[in-house]
């Protein structure tokens, strides 16, 4: 073959290939034009957003935590399981092979009401109809989901097995009613409530996106293997709520409401130094029993009554117009301003006395007359109002929860505010003004905190993936709302109100607390009300010497067993305070604290004497006293041989035991087990017993114990 022929052959073949390539290119051109121009409208219509769209995937909501991390509100996941019977990878062969066993599993584990035969027919029928979204199970929990994912067919996943898992979640509050309203909720089409509402932007997280395709029947199914945006779980918020204290406050308030068959009540426990709210309870009587139906503590601005005398008193002191020793005539309990009478809570017969006495016994006449004398008669009511405002009583606290009640403090001589000749004296006793319980508490807390007013707050931090991303600390509203002198006097007066005044029947030797009762007639404008309605309250703080907590208790419309703040609200306050001390021993001042070291360096052993062995051991370990024990027997007594030693103590049945040196609980346990009826007086340990130890016991005999 010649070179030229070879060359021609080669080039000839090259041109054949070239023609093919060029034709292919032209075909590509043509097809592109066909799709874009000729079929263009059809494809564009198909690309309509109705056909495919991104749908939000709701993120898991963050948790609301108590101060110690306990879950106050959390989201429990559950799942809906569906099946795409026309999934791309679900071939006829695969389906036919496994439909029987899938039906069997569905009948056994998902819904035993239907037979495997039923499920089998159902699956086959729906597949024939092209169902791409067949519901298999609802409300499936995590554990069950794991099982379902192992079912025949479904175990092949979304593409081959047609498995569609839709995650949903339900909000749960493990502590149920505790602080329920304050934790709140977010629901569709309803005004959000509580912390869930105000921290929604943190809690809700970021919704993800998933591409969904509309299939026959108008349902949307997720499109597989495309960029799917995972939702971001919401942040957690840590509240200042102490779940133990919350329980105490709730329980105490509940008892109070039951005792007095009241309409509603609220109680707040606040950390004096920081303004952190440790517990907040709102309980109302509803058709379905007691419930946290409204945030009375934060939302309800009412006439506070006598607790407001604190503001009046402090104004007079701060303005230098009066001292606790200023004289005032109580006119035996009734006076008259213009055409209306003002009464004290009862006719007491007291006339000339001090302002201190008037405050501590909560005399309306005494406070109103003095305020009227000092500001009203001199037409200086505006000065009084200005002074009150310097205590921030006209401001909202700015608590994180929306819907805080607006305080009402009338402007002096303002027509608009319906200022009248009787406004000033009534105002000084807590009428014609409105405050929410939280706003009142903030004022008391400032007094407890030596004049430094703290902003109440409920949320201490926002947590993402276990790490705090935002922190909220204590906020000072006003470093000093009044002079140190005034604050000291107020503290003294509030202590006096408990020690000598309206609170005296609830005072205790265990610790000192200070506060002010409030009894407000709610329906005083109804002259002929068949039954007078009251609001009983008590606001105060404890321990009085170095306050740790401030607390307000308010009970609205008590219908039985009294209505005074001292009789209705104060016992609840006492119970809360008692339990706080019991729960938090670190707040109890040591009883035997002494600054002096013993000169001889001798050890003083705790005076344990005898008792239930394991209890003694627990207590000694807790307070860190070294001791040795035989760890033997139910009862033990102490001996001292260089160190504290517990020995086994035995009581022989039928003989009167020696309970001297025991605590009451142990003594009662021991004696009543022997059929002895116990009567006792005093507190502390048993010092005398009326029947000599060793005496044979007769059934039903009575013993008197003296404790000290």
């Amino acid at each position, binding site marked *: 073959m010649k070179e030229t022929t*070879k*060359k021609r052959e080669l080039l000839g073949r090259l041109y054949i290939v070239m023609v093919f390539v060029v034709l292919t290119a032209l075909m590509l051109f043509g097809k592109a034009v066909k799709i874009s121009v000729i079929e263009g409208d059809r494809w564009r219509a198909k690309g309509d957003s109705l056909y495919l769209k991104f749908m939000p995937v709701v993120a898991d909501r963050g948790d609301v935590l108590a101060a110690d991390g306990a879950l106050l509100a959390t989201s429990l996941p559950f799942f809906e399981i569906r099946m795409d019977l026309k999934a791309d990878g679900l071939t006829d062969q695969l389906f036919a092979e496994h439909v029987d066993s899938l039906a069997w599993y569905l009948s056994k584990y998902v819904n035993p009401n239907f037979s495997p035969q039923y499920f089998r027919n159902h699956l086959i029928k729906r597949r024939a109809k092209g169902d791409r979204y067949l519901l298999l199970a609802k409300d499936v929990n995590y554990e069950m989901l794991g099982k379902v994912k192992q079912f025949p067919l479904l175990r092949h996943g979304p593409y081959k097995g047609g498995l569609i898992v839709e995650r949903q979640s339900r909000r749960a509050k493990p502590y149920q009613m505790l602080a329920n309203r304050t934790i709140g909720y977010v629901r569709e089409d309803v005004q959000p409530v509580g912390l869930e509402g105000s921290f929604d932007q943190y809690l809700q997280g970021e919704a993800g996106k998933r591409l969904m395709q509309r299939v026959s029947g108008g349902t949307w199914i997720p499109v597989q293997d495309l960029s799917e945006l995972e939702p971001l779980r919401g942040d957690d918020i840590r509240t200042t709520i102490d779940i133990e204290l919350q329980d105490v406050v709730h329980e105490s308030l509940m008892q109070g409401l039951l005792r007095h068959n009241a309409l509603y009540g609220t109680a707040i426990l606040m950390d004096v130094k920081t303004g952190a709210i440790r517990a907040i309870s709102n309980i109302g009587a509803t058709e379905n029993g007691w419930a946290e139906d409204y945030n009375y503590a934060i939302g309800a601005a009412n006439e506070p009554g006598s607790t407001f005398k604190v503001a009046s008193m402090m104004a007079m002191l701060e303005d230098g117009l009066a001292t606790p020793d200023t004289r005032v005539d109580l006119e035996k309990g009734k006076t008259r301003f213009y055409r209306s009478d003002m009464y004290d809570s009862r006719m007491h017969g007291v006339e000339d006395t001090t302002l201190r006495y008037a405050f501590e016994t909560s005399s309306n006449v005494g406070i109103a007359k003095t305020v009227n004398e000092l500001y009203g008669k001199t037409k200086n009511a505006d000065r009084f109002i200005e002074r009150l405002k310097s205590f921030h009583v006209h401001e909202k606290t700015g608590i994180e929860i929306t819907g805080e009640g607006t305080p009402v403090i009338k402007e002096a001589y303002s027509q608009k505010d319906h200022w009248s000749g009787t406004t000033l004296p009534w105002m000084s006793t807590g009428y014609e003004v409105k405050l929410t319980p939280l706003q009142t508490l903030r004022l008391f807390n400032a007094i407890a905190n030596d004049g430094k007013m703290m902003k109440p707050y409920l949320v201490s931090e926002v947590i993402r993936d276990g790490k705090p991303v935002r922190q909220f600390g204590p906020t000072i509203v006003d470093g000093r709302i009044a002079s140190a002198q005034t604050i000291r006097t107020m503290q003294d007066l509030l202590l006096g109100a408990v020690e000598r005044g309206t609170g005296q029947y609830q005072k205790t030797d265990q610790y000192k607390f200070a506060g002010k009762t409030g009894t407000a007639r709610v329906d005083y404008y109804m002259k002929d009300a068949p039954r007078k309605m009251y609001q009983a309250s008590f606001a105060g703080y404890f321990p009085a010497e170095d306050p740790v907590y401030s607390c307000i208790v308010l009970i609205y419309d008590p219908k039985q067993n009294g209505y005074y703040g001292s009789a209705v609200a104060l016992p609840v306050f006492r119970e809360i305070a008692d339990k706080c001390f019991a729960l938090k021993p670190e707040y109890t001042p040591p009883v035997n604290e002494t600054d002096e070291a013993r000169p001889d360096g001798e050890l003083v052993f705790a005076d344990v004497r005898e008792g239930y062995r394991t209890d003694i051991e627990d207590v000694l370990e807790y307070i860190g006293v070294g001791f040795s024990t035989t760890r033997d027997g139910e009862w033990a007594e102490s001996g001292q041989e260089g160190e504290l030693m517990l020995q086994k103590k035995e009581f022989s049945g039928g003989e009167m035991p020696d309970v001297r040196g025991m605590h009451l609980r142990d003594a009662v346990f021991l004696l009543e087990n022997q059929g002895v009826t116990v009567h006792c007086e005093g507190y502390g340990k048993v010092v005398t017993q009326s029947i000599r130890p060793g005496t044979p016991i007769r059934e039903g005999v009575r013993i008197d114990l003296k404790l000290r």
Partner: protein
Amino acid sequence: MNAISIYRNLKGDKAIWIVVALLAVLSVLAVYSSTGTMAFQYRGGHTEIYLIKHGLIVALGLFLTYISYMLHYMQYSRLAPLLMIVSIVLLVYTLFFGTELNDARRWIEIPGLQLSFQTSDFAKMALIIFVARSISTKQEVIKDFNSAFLPIIAPVLITCLLIAPADLSTAALLFVTCVLMMFIGRVSLKYIGVLAGFGIMGIAFLIVIGTLFPEMVRLETWISRLNEFFVNSDGGYQIQQAKIAIADGGWFGVGPGNSIQRNYLPYPYADFIYAIICEEYGLVGGFTIIFLYLLLFLKCVRIVTRSPKTFGAILAMGLCLNLVIQAFANIAVSLHLVPVTGLTLPLVSKGGTSMLFTCISLGIILSVSRYIEQASKDVGKVEIKDLNADHH
């Protein structure tokens, strides 16, 4: 200024250089658009990372183009046997020990570096160089079975069979490329016909293997793709989305970065990048792409006509055919002319090794054009003995 002086100093076919440059620019634009899916925008946008990464790869690729262009193409002929052996070893290794990604073993990890390497990209080039060398050296006996056909076809079959289990499309493309090279290189039509039979037999063989060892061959994927193509006249979900993209683009497109369909198309930056280009730049953009590849091909045809039978001409044509067929196959997928193949658009799609080897291929083509250009200019001045051993 600088660019112009570089351009002036570049030898080789200027049109090919322009094709390379334009495709590289388009690649950066299209990849930027198609990776900027809603998901990324929504999360504060990390598209820049893809842009930078892709930009760096393109830059590295162009650098490699330049390097391989600077090298005299006869060097590749010398290296061919070695490359061929290395390629087969690597392919065997990949088939058994490669990294599995999306159900297919196509990658090997480069120890030390955290890079993966698609062996078939390397094998493709090695084989084409080797076949070009065989065809050109055996021109005298090219019609013979034992001394020409068999030595040429054996490595082709071995390589393609090793690539096929994990990547049938690439294997088929490579096979077709080699057959076309042999066709142009004057191998007897009789044997070419037999080869077509071989191709069919090869596929049949793979189906048998796939049934016996389902783990090794992605039979299911092929079947579902073929099924989709032949059963559904509108195409499957992906194809429909691609068509919507093309239709949305109209003549002039919706503009760079405005693609909507990129959110609905799987691998919009690879398999379906042509649809995205059509959506954003319209049919005009789509035609430009096809035209650029066609231009590349025609320029290579010109190289062959100038210097037929030489190693350089066959090599350039082989590399070019591989690129252009792959490009057209990719485009044909988006246009619903062939079933989904998984082939990328050379030099445009996002990708690491494939982009780099495409660039090297183009560099080799340019090297060939450069020396052939020079040789034709030198005609009549000095008799230059072609480095190739064959006789005119």
